[in-house]
């Protein structure tokens, strides 16, 4: 059966991708952030996953307000980078894992989740940036197949944090029951604290961000029990997307080892973070 070898988390701030596009990695503004992500990429190189399930949100690029799925599962064979207004970014097309996507949909429905099934869609910075942080910028092909899980964290009602956590548990059952010898990682993306709208724009909360990075490993039940309002208050209106990390955490065992944590404030207007978790050996 397939094996879950790690749970990863990373911010998906578009400016991180733009900084890579413009060659700003070594500049004073960006070097401290990127240097702290090196161990996450090294972990992926050393552990060689075959498949990445990436939990993220579309930012008004592939989905408009005419159709807003709360959870959507990618069942496509490929995902192209989308045009977000500047033209598609010059990164390779992502190969999809349609067979696992369909298997995941089957298992989710049996677990009383009712996701949207997606077979043709392009992906924005929400997926691209974490992939670049964990796998670098390959010339021709990414080293893993991907299965995107799209979460609506923009148009209210957004899902409950507790529901994201439950989705992760169902995702784990799907990985454990998938007839394959592939090695999986699950990547939670987004956050940390930021607010882009209203007169509180520019709000960040380093203390809450650091507590989140500690508790996503040690006390995820606390984070899952918080309300959406708690997330908005603590992490900002856009930082509430941090609840998507709970899907990743829900897929992991209760007891995990933290292999890497990184925090940097600000990346553009956002508290930027990364985490690498492994299930604690029995």
């Amino acid at each position: 059966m397939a094996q879950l070898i790690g749970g990863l988390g990373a911010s998906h701030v578009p400016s991180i991708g733009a900084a890579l596009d413009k060659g700003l990695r070594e500049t004073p503004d960006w070097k401290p952030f990127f240097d702290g992500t090196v161990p996450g990429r090294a972990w992926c190189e050393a552990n060689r996953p075959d498949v990445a399930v990436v939990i993220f949100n579309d930012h008004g690029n592939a989905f408009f307000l005419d159709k807003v799925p709360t959870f959507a599962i990618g069942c496509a064979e490929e995902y192209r980078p989308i045009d977000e207004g500047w033209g598609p970014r010059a990164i390779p097309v992502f190969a999809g894992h349609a067979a696992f996507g369909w298997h995941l949909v089957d298992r989710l429905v049996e677990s009383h989740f009712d996701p949207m099934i997606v077979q043709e869609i392009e992906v924005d910075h929400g997926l691209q940036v974490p992939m670049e942080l964990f796998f670098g910028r390959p010339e021709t092909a990414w080293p893993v197949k991907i299965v995107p899980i799209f979460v609506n964290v923009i148009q209210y009602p957004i899902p409950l944090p507790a529901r994201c956590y439950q989705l992760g548990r169902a995702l784990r059952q799907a990985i454990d029951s998938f007839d394959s010898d592939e090695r999986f990682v699950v990547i939670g993306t987004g956050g940390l604290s930021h607010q882009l709208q209203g007169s509180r724009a520019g709000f960040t909360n380093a203390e809450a961000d650091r507590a989140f990075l500690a508790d996503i490993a040690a006390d995820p039940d606390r984070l899952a029990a918080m309300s959406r309002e708690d997330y908005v208050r603590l992490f900002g209106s856009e930082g509430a997307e941090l609840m998507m990390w709970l899907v990743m955490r829900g897929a992991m065992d209760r007891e995990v080892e933290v292999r890497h944590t990184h925090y940097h404030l600000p990346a553009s207007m956002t508290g930027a973070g990364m985490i690498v978790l492994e299930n604690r050996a029995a």
Partner: protein
Amino acid sequence: MDPDRIPDTPLFDRARQRRGYNLNKMAMGLGTPANRDAFRADESAYLNRFGLSPEEKRAVMARDWREMVRLGGNVFYLLKISAIDPVRMTEIGAHQAGMDHETFLRERLGKR
């Protein structure tokens, strides 16, 4: 949840997205090159295609980000305007916070 219980934080709830539907649809359209060309060639005509009201048109043409958000615009759509008429996210943030850019970077984001 009552979306506006958190001060100065406009959440994208049912009322706001309905109010801003045309405005956001116009901005979403800028994800395709032909629409970007149309916007550049005749901004007013492009905005008319989406049935924008006079106050919505004024807000877009003045690049009044605070007003666009007040009218139901959501930054994730509106940002496509910044791909045509370049402006940094931090400048959009500063405008909404009612600060000049330097003050915003220093006071909100801790930059020196």
